[in-house]
């Protein structure tokens, strides 16, 4: 069997990655982990979540490509795996469409979201304290 004499393939004709590749990928994973850890201390505000998720996706891709051998595997296995990500996106996407918009039709079931569309209690309670200045400015705004 010719396959046995070739150091790049095992007895089943599957690719054997050099040991060096595994350690290089590990080094890259460590660098990205350090990066995401360091970035978490920099106050990026709203950008911190997309940055952290981008780094996590890069790390996940490295693991899938080299450790899980998807680079050398049958394409069908890649398709199977990516299909799970697709259905996960459908799950997340449609659920969030519901959660984020339910308050438009139902203030009780839309708990926690309803307030974003209808800021209720806070202005109502604050009104007595600021009644005087509000009264002064109201006519001005009217004219």
């Amino acid at each position, binding site marked *: 069997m010719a396959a046995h004499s070739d150091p790049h393939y095992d007895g*089943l004709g599957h690719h054997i990655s050099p040991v060096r590749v595994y350690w290089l990928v590990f080094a890259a994973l460590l660098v990205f982990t350090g990066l995401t850890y360091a970035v978490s201390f920099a106050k990026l505000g709203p950008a*911190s979540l997309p940055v*952290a998720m981008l780094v996590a996706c890069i790390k996940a891709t490295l693991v899938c490509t080299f450790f899980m051998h998807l680079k050398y595997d*049958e394409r069908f296995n890649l398709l*199977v795996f990516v299909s799970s990500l697709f259905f996960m996106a459908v*799950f997340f996407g449609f659920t969030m469409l519901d959660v984020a918009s339910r308050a438009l039709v139902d203030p009780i079931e839309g708990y926690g979201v309803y307030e974003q569309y209808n800021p209720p209690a806070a202005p109502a309670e604050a009104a007595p304290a600021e009644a005087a200045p509000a009264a002064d400015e109201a006519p001005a705004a009217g004219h």
Partner: protein
Amino acid sequence: MSDSHAAHGHADAPGNNSPFFQHHFVTMTQQASAAKLGMWLFLVQEVLFFSGLFMFYIIFRYLHPDTMLWASEHLLDKTMGGINTVVLLFSSVTMALAVRAGQVGNKQHQVTYLAITIVCACIFLCVKYVEYSHKFHMGALPGHFYSYAGNIPGEPQTFFALYFCLTGLHGIHVIAGIIALLWLMKRSARGDFGPTYYAPLELTGLYWHLVDLVWIFLFPLLYLIH
């Protein structure tokens, strides 16, 4: 046994003289590829299984971003999470190298790398134990078990339900992985695996990398919030 295989007309295909070759497959390559497809289908199920809890995370973060931020910053230790990330990544390399040792038929390396992987998994669980007991002592627990004295905005008891569900389910996967790895170590030591038969090593490897993948997302989502 080899007689029945000879009847296939593929008796000379690599691995078809292996005692682990099952009679309903034509070649060992076909057997391995069928097994791997089955494993990938299982991993798809795992992704969707975990995605239910990630959905919980997304909705909770959407409704209570302040609770998430406060609890993560004050009650989760980034350094502990970071150490666990490195430990798990390292265990993923050693797992991949154990599979490679199976491909090249190096028994000694298989056993060594599997042992290192198991040790890493145990270190991971020890760090988790320290983190969990810290939270138990503070009363930072789910639902009506919640008795933490600090004033956390929003719904901290729900945050800790989320935290313990996500990390707990992941931890159960780590424990299941350790059991599978111990079984593999026994088989490796017996010399079951070689260049034409290493499917159990490879499939457990795929599972172990998925456990690593889940943690790659859990770590920034739970520990590194700003």
